[in-house]
């Protein structure tokens, strides 16, 4: 990039791409992959989600990773963000639970209440 204007143009482009959700993507699944998450088992969780989404041919979901949100004791944490920005935080996940979230939430559109932060950490 050769100027501040170019940086700002890129920012607008990235933002509008995120809003338009190219290719019909309207849901983001974010897995906490800092040291605390990985130590608690985030890698198998990530794999289970990626595989589940691919095997079921779910097209509207983008799976990505992030750092630590501070709730280290509840890792692995998976968040599902819908097109309106509503967030569901799943905590203390493992591969089996992740597969169920793929099936119920991502494919079926039903929140798996018992794995959410409000249900687990009461």
């Amino acid at each position: 990039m050769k100027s501040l204007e170019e940086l700002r143009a890129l920012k607008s482009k990235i933002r509008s791409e995120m809003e338009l959700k190219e290719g019909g993507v309207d849901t983001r699944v974010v897995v906490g992959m800092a040291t605390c998450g990985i130590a608690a088992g985030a890698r198998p969780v990530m794999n289970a989600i990626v595989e589940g989404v691919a095997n079921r041919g779910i097209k509207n979901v983008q799976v990505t990773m992030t750092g630590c949100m501070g709730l280290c004791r509840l890792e692995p944490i998976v968040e599902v963000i819908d097109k309106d920005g509503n967030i569901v935080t799943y905590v203390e996940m493992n591969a089996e639970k992740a597969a169920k979230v793929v099936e119920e939430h991502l494919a079926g559109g039903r929140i798996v209440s018992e794995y959410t932060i409000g249900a687990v950490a009461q």
Partner: protein
Amino acid sequence: MQIENNKEQNVLVVDARKTDFFKKQVRIALRNCGKINPENIDEYIAEDGYEALGRVITTMTPEEVIDVMLKSGLRGRGGAGFPTGRKWDFARKSVSDKKYVCCNADEGDPGAFMDRSVLEGDPHVVLEAMAIAGYAIGSDQGYIYVRAEYPIAVKRLEIAIKQAKEYGLLGKNILGTNFSFDIELRLGAGAFVCGEETALMTSIEGHRGEPRPRPPFPAVKGLFKQPTILNNVETYANVPRIILNGAEWFANIGAERSKGTKVFAVGGKIKNTGLVEIPMGTTLREVIEEIGGGIPNGKKFKAAQTGGPSGGCIPASLIDTPIEYDTLIEIGSMMGSGGLIVMDEDTCMVDLAKFFLSFTVEESCGKCPPCRIGTKRMYDILEKITSGRGELSDIDDLYALASAIKNSALCGLGQTAPNPVLSTLRYFKDEYIAHVVDKKCPAGVCKNLLQYKIIADKCRGCSACARKCPVNCISGEIKKPFVIDQSKCIKCGTCMETCKFGAIVKE
């Protein structure tokens, strides 16, 4: 417990950000952590990333940048709390054709992990801030000194540097200006002393990591004998937001003498262990009870330790102390880099002091005698006290050694090493006296000072404890009270856990 259903509406809270854990937090340094993908520069740019650097190098003079930092009131988050703007100003005024910007990512305090979290969750913020600092002081080269024990942080920093260079946000003529800035990584080999600024620079230079006397201060003669600034990861993580939102915005957050927020790695005997970012001036009670969710298992809060091996403890009587640089110093602790270890009634304060001393003994680099010999002598005295051989004169000796070390050690490691002993002596002297005079450990931690006993009236003579005892030191007849042979007992506590009748006590 703080993360719970909203009882009034009886609705299940499914978004972590709407739980009590987040309600009292203000996130500046951690604003992108847990939100963006740290390995994708685009996501950082979408969150206004590199906008602050762009504005600084196209519209501001170095003096104006430093003025913003001074007015914001930002102080170093590594522990000592030196005003960041003043540090930058000293380096800017030092005349040299080569200057350096360093980042201290050698997070070594036991129990502190907030810098790791920033590096792993938002590495670009550190790169952007270092470039801003480079522009402010007139430097074109930065070094991040990061501990090799943080492999994920190292990997994400490498990715971030590569991406920033590809985008032309690091390197020559950034955004078409005359400003060039490059950043390299240097990995620490696991020595705690390398978190000390002069030792860190010595290590970057390729020498054994040992501190050197100050003055000359790094702003005058630092890395490779050139003017250098060194800031902590969390300090840098605040910088781009201060530029974007203005000094006044930042100065309005926090307390009178401590502006902004501080990230704490909360650990120990607390329900919600993790990372919290709170405005300065928040009380310890709010952190422990409201954000942290209180002490588990119905135990009582005894003290909190801040500042790691350089800091001290805050007793329960001072739980309403606002967390600020100066208030913590006044009560004999310090902000430190942000480790906050919560302790309940089962913690022995003499044992705690001994733990931190064992850490400094291990990590003392050995260059100066007060630290090398003094901390070892203090440790030996604590060992003597906790093993039941202490005398009252030992406590006087601890004071004498502490003051000698504080006054004569070469660097911050040694100068602050006696703090855990001094602050536990200040608030828990009765525990030291109990160890020395009564030969008792009130918290029941120091093994040499406690005995497991069977209360004859309560013992049913079931022999369960005797069968579990690993050294076979419990004997007796079935249906009659059993007895522990104290000369053989290794104080493992198995018998007490085994007994169903509460007939075994520890005293």
